[in-house]
């Protein structure tokens, strides 16, 4: 398995919310990708946005600016 690194993770209530995040990040040229939600956040299922921790500030600003429907923001070792 890969060595764990700190990641900034954004979760969503719906797949549609995750799609909106991905599209907004691509348009704004911000880093990250959709991955399965890790168990350290929830034991459910679904997808989340995983990005390098140094992108956190820009991503949070994007979420506010684009009124993206996010469930939670986390710093996680993945």
């Amino acid at each position: 398995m890969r060595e764990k690194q700190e990641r900034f993770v954004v979760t969503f209530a719906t797949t549609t919310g995750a799609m909106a995040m991905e599209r907004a990040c691509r348009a704004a040229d911000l880093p990250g990708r959709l991955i399965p939600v890790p168990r350290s956040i929830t034991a459910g299922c679904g997808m989340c946005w995983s990005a390098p921790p140094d992108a956190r500030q820009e991503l949070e600003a994007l979420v506010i600016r684009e009124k993206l429907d996010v469930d939670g923001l986390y710093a996680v070792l993945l």
Partner: protein
Amino acid sequence: MIYLDNAATTRPKPPGVAEAVAAAMNEYGNSGRGTHPEALEAARSVYGVRQTLASLFGCPRADRVAFTPNSTMALNVAVSGLLGPGDHVLSTDLEHNSVLRPLYRLRSQGAEVDFVPADRQGRIDYADFDRLLRPNTKAVVCTHGSNLTGDLVDIGWVGDFCRRHGLLFILDASQTAGVFPIDMRKQHISVVCFTGHKSLMGPQGTGGLCVGEEVEIRPFAVGGTGVQSYSETQPEAYPTRLEAGTLNSHGIAGLGAALMFLERIGWDAVRAHENALARRFYESVKILPGVKVYGDFTVQERAPIVTLNIADLDSSEVADELAERFQIATRPGAHCAPRLHRALGTEDRGAVRFSWSYFNTEAETDAAAEAVRTLAEEAL
């Protein structure tokens, strides 16, 4: 075959629709079920079509567009999820059974329903909405355009009526979506129910509902959603709240291709072409002895439908003759619109409906008019 049954389903579909469905079947995983490339490709495609539909209907957000298999299901979701015993609901005689049966069932559960009556020409009087209003009236549920006559309802007027009286407005856009302007915000529409396979020219098995902000619909079906798996209840967030089970991402991909085609041609150009053909046919047949045309043709803006009867012939007999002898596809019978047939006085024999799409031509239209002329002469 000259296909003039586009109010039942448009045929053919635009170039690219079948190809998009086939590509999706070969390439997509399950939207919202995993994050491998194939699942994400499906989810991205579905999301893109949500965005297009939200823009088309003036829906405030893409996540307020929920997919269903058709507009009947969308109407069931809206009616059962917003209304209940003790509520009073207004509708019209123009409705299809997709509106009527959910309302009749609601009535059997303790709600009250009144229908704005249609006259012998199929017209409604908007003053009747005020006359039928009650203190417990909660909603208007009505069609944008009659699937029988093509007559339109002034949804700007109905939306303003609902705004003035604090009512929900649930719109059945089955016959008009994509061809006639619908703007949820400007026209104060709470829920737009649409089907993908008629005027939107997509595959059968696609449809949905656009839900206005602050409109909270109780889920009709509950089940797998790909999120919040350990919750015993359906997630509350839209559109997941209304989308239990795997989506028809293959069909939705086809619907997306159809929407791209319509955008490229232009909604106004599509409407102008279809209406010009329907009007051309009407002008040809209205003067024929023995032919009775239904609906209000004093109005220029109408769905591309002309419905008629010939002498005292059974509509089924006429449609069969048109198909077998002239290779013209039409729809006879009751068209799932029992209240309007009663209003028009055609309950006993139905009527023959001709309906156009963007792919019909003047030559086809003239051939259909000539076939009606022949049958009318033979009937005299």
